[in-house]
């Protein structure tokens, strides 16, 4: 059942009326019959009009005979009070601003309003603060981006410089070494043994210089992302064994033992043999260099998804705070036992680069006085991953050189032999698989033309017709090239 509404009429239309109207007009137990003021432009009248409440110059307009009405007199005029006072009877109740309940209500209203205003001011400040902070963060972010760009440009410049300089240094060095060798070996006339001794020293140092330059070159290539791995499936166990063998004479001359711990099964890893040998040489070489007595331990453990290789020694160890800097450039810790074996400070940085190129990890564990253990991992690959990597690598290379046209050629050799061995069904499903994978890996699939025997990726500005005619020309060029290559 609907609650009975209280009918009210408000006399006077000042600030108080406005506040009261705002408070009561949406109240469901109150029905405002009207607002009364002689001044039709008073603030309370305006407010009532806005809220859709009737207004009038005389209260009598809102008085109906048999209706309960409460008249609230906010006019503060004596005449109005007196006149209205006479009206009070069973049906009509008159309250004026002196009535305590109205006073409390108005006071409450006042407090609420000023409180709200305070909150609003506070909110304004908060939102101002947030806006300013956002602006600041955006600016800083932009600055950071700019700096980052500058830095990567500088880095590139540095790498280019390093590789150019290294190349320039290598050529004269080869000439110097060759010349000195010829003098020492008496090809240009007789030399005394003392002269030969000095010339040998000269050659040793030239050799060391060459090693440093080679290392610098290796590192700058890795840093510039120009190192290409020549990978193939390799038995990691036999690779490690072979590398160990090369150290046997050095180990026995220092009286060091070598302890080997290999997983029983052979494990094939898709790796660049020369590069991994370089890593092993570096790690084993370091261990031998810094170990005076005890043993060198080498282990290769099959960990399921990856192979873990480690080289440990009983040398003097590395301080904990030095461990994290170990793989940075030009860091050398401790003096080599033999001055002729002085390193370049680049070996571990290069090793890290190589291992990371293989998508592996490298780290060191050490206790001062007890020895050091270097560990690196190499992930095992399945053929699908190998293929995937080759595709993304070639794509990335194409992007880097920013050549306008890059062609990826997939050649499947021994197709009929494969068909004979596996059966037609399997070969077809393999090819389908391959095509699907290519499509997944190549960017912007929607810009691809897929035909029965080929797939093409288009540049943004090219129309399909242009791409198709270009494709024909490319195909004829490519087949010509392949024909020549086969003939040659």
């Amino acid at each position, binding site marked *: 059942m609907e609650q009975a509404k209280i009918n009210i009429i408000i006399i006077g239309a000042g600030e108080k009326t406005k506040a009261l109207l705002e408070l009561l007009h949406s109240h469901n137990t109150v029905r405002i019959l009207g607002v009364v003021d002689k001044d039709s432009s008073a603030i309370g009248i305006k407010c009532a009009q806005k809220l859709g409440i009737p207004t009038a110059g005389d209260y009598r307009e809102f008085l109906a005979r048999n209706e309960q009405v409460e008249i609230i007199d906010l006019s503060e005029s004596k005449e109005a009070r007196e006149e209205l006072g006479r009206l009070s009877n069973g049906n009509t109740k008159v309250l004026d601003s002196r009535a305590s309940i109205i006073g409390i209500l108005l006071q409450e209203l006042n407090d609420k309003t000023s409180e709200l205003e305070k909150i609003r001011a506070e909110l304004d*400040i908060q939102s101002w603060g947030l806006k*300013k902070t956002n602006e*600041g963060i955006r*600016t800083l972010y932009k600055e950071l981006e700019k700096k980052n760009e500058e830095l990567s440009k500088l880095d590139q410049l540095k790498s280019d410089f390093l590789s150019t300089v290294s190349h320039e240094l290598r050529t004269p060095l080869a000439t110097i070494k060759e010349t000195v060798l010829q003098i020492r070996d008496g090809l240009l006339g007789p030399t005394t043994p003392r002269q030969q001794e000095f010339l040998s020293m000269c050659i040793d140092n030239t050799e060391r210089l060459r090693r440093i330059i080679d290392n610098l070159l290796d590192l700058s290539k890795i840093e510039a992302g120009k190192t290409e791995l020549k990978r193939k499936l390799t038995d990691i166990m036999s690779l490690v064994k072979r590398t160990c063998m090369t150290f046997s004479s050095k180990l026995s001359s220092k009286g060091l033992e070598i302890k080997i711990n290999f997983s029983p099964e052979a494990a094939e890893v898709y790796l660049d043999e020369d590069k991994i040998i370089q890593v092993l040489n570096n790690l084993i070489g370091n261990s031998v260099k810094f170990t005076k007595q005890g043993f060198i331990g080498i282990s290769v453990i099959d960990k399921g998804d990856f192979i873990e290789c480690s080289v440990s020694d009983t040398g003097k160890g590395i301080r904990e705070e030095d461990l994290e800097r170990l793989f940075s450039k030009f860091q050398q810790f401790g003096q080599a036992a033999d001055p002729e074996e002085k390193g370049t400070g680049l070996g571990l940085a290069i090793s890290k680069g190589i291992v990371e190129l293989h998508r592996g990890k490298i780290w060191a564990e050490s206790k001062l006085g007890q020895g050091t253990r270097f560990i690196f991992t190499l992930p095992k690959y399945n053929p699908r991953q190998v293929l995937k990597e080759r595709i993304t690598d070639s794509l990335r290379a194409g992007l880097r050189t920013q050549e306008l046209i890059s062609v990826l050629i997939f050649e499947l050799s021994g197709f009929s032999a494969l068909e004979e061995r596996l059966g037609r069904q399997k070969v077809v499903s393999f090819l389908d698989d391959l095509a699907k994978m290519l499509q997944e890996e190549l960017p912007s699939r929607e810009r691809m033309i897929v035909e029965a025997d080929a797939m093409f990726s288009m540049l943004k500005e090219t129309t399909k017709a242009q791409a198709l005619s270009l494709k024909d020309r490319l195909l004829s060029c490519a087949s010509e090239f392949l024909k020549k290559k086969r003939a040659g």
Partner: protein
Amino acid sequence: MIKKVLVIDDNEQDRKIAERYLKKSGYSEIVMAINGQEGLSKVNSENPGLVILDTMLPDIVGFEVCQKIKESKGPQAPLIIMMTGAVDAVDAVRARQSGADDYCVKTADGGPLLAALKNISEKDIGPQT
């Protein structure tokens, strides 16, 4: 019309950057203070029309300096732009509550300061040219 600008910052590099961009915006008379105490006394002695104030000062917190300037000078108080090296929403709100007219982040290119100066000069009649 703002004639004189006071920069309160303990970092020399930051003072120089502020000076450069103030000059660029047409303010020729620039006074420096390297801490809050010096800043407060220079507000009285130099009577600047604008103060560039760092939030982090070695002696008095920047917000307090800001509040003291605004309270002591009343309606004659200079405009205040608070600058920070570490942008933070709570700090921004504090700056406003302390009476700062603007709050901006420090950058090497002075972009935010220039923008704040432009805002100020629109509010004010701007620097004398």
